[in-house]
């Protein structure tokens, strides 16, 4: 059973629909303790990093102890950003801190007409082996919609460039994250979600 954590950051319908289509057994936990029994945790999220403040303890503690016992954790979009230490978007909100580094605003480039927010399909440049990317090829395209992004750290297994180069997929041990929306990225996105489910199986 996978726990899909709902902390009120946007709408979970799309993620639920994709998990259902993949035949995943999942629940949206109503209490933090349920995270401890899950085989895998998904922290989705759209919108502002500030919303992750609602993931503070007791949620943070429950997710933390599950991860410490080896449960895979998958952060999507703002959920991936939360895996880091914090974000310039909401300096008062403290990240989960599983990955060192801070989320910063993309610069854009007016001369090249590179706008921020970064909205649309962009490619994944693979940086190393990754369970999350099994069956996909470097250059695969996925759907992004964000203005802030993670630095390229040792956990970066795929990077994407939009004026800046940022981590679009991170993976280390049982920590996984994607900046884009796999639930909105067609077959490539479904493959990534399926890969995470296989890690949890």
């Amino acid at each position, binding site marked *: 059973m996978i726990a899909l954590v709902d902390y009120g950051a*946007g*709408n979970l*319908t*799309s993620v639920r*629909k*994709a998990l259902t*289509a993949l035949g995943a057994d999942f629940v949206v936990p109503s209490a933090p303790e349920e995270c401890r029994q899950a085989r895998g945790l998904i922290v989705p999220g*759209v*919108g*502002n990093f500030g919303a992750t403040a609602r993931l503070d303890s007791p949620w943070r503690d429950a997710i933390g102890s599950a991860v410490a016992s080896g449960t895979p954790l998958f952060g999507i979009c703002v959920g991936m950003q939360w895996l880091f230490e914090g974000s310039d978007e909401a300096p008062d909100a403290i990240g989960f801190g599983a990955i060192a580094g801070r989320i910063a605003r993309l610069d*854009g480039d007016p001369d090249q*007409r*590179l*706008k*921020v*927010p*970064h*909205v*649309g*399909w*962009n*490619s994944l440049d693979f940086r190393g082996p990754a369970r999350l990317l099994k069956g996909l090829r470097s250059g695969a*395209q996925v*759907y*992004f*919609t*964000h203005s802030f992004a993670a630095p390229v750290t040792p956990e970066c297994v795929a990077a994407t*460039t*939009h004026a800046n180069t940022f981590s679009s997929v991170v993976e280390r041990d049982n920590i996984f994250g994607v900046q884009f*929306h796999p*639930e*909105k*990225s*067609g*077959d490539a*996105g*479904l493959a990534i979600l399926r890969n995470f489910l296989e890690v949890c199986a």
Partner: protein
Amino acid sequence: MLTKRIIACMDVRDGQVVKGVQFQQLRHAGDPAALARRYNVEGIDEVVVLDITATLESRQALARTINAVAHEIFLPLTVGGGIRSEDDAAAAIDAGADKVSLNTAALRQPDLITTLASRYGSQAVIVAIDAKRRDDGFAVYVRSGTTDAARDAVAWAKEAESRGAGEILLTSMDRDGTKAGFDCEMTAAVSDVVDIPVIASGGAGSVDHFADVFTRGHADAALAASIFHYAESSVTELKRHLRTHGIPVRL
């Protein structure tokens, strides 16, 4: 590299896709879920469902349509047409929409843009602008193009962005349904003053029209309906054509 998006629009009435020529003379084009499935196979980047009747009865039909389409495709799905309140937007999003498109309601009560952006994030809020050329600029029309809103499209797009809109869907009423090409000048005028993406709409008739609007028109995305519905041009062919012209697309 960020690619240029190709978006298929379905104008829906009573659960069926229809397409008008300059907002009139509707003709029948098919089942929304079946069309969405075909577009997905062909590589469409996004789908927009526009409810063109927006009566109370059609609202419930619309929720069923959104749900049916959302079960066919795992791509961004926008719903528009008659979204007048936070409740209307919530109903569309709960049914499976990722974004809502506001038109008349955004001009009447601009606070709605901000309310929805705070609740769902700016990425979920598109402001749709229907505009016509005039000597002094681009005039915004509302109520399905029937009423002059006494606003300039460029200024309104900027205001919509400052109020929290995540994208602008700009339709040329002069070109809509004519297949004479997008209004590149108008699209560039808007795209150049906002940081959010601009989706060009109205006038797609050939693959070259798309190349034009991505180059001369500075569009981030282009939307069309009938050119895809009647399979006059497949999405795949269109994207191959754009790629040969050096325009980045997802293929």
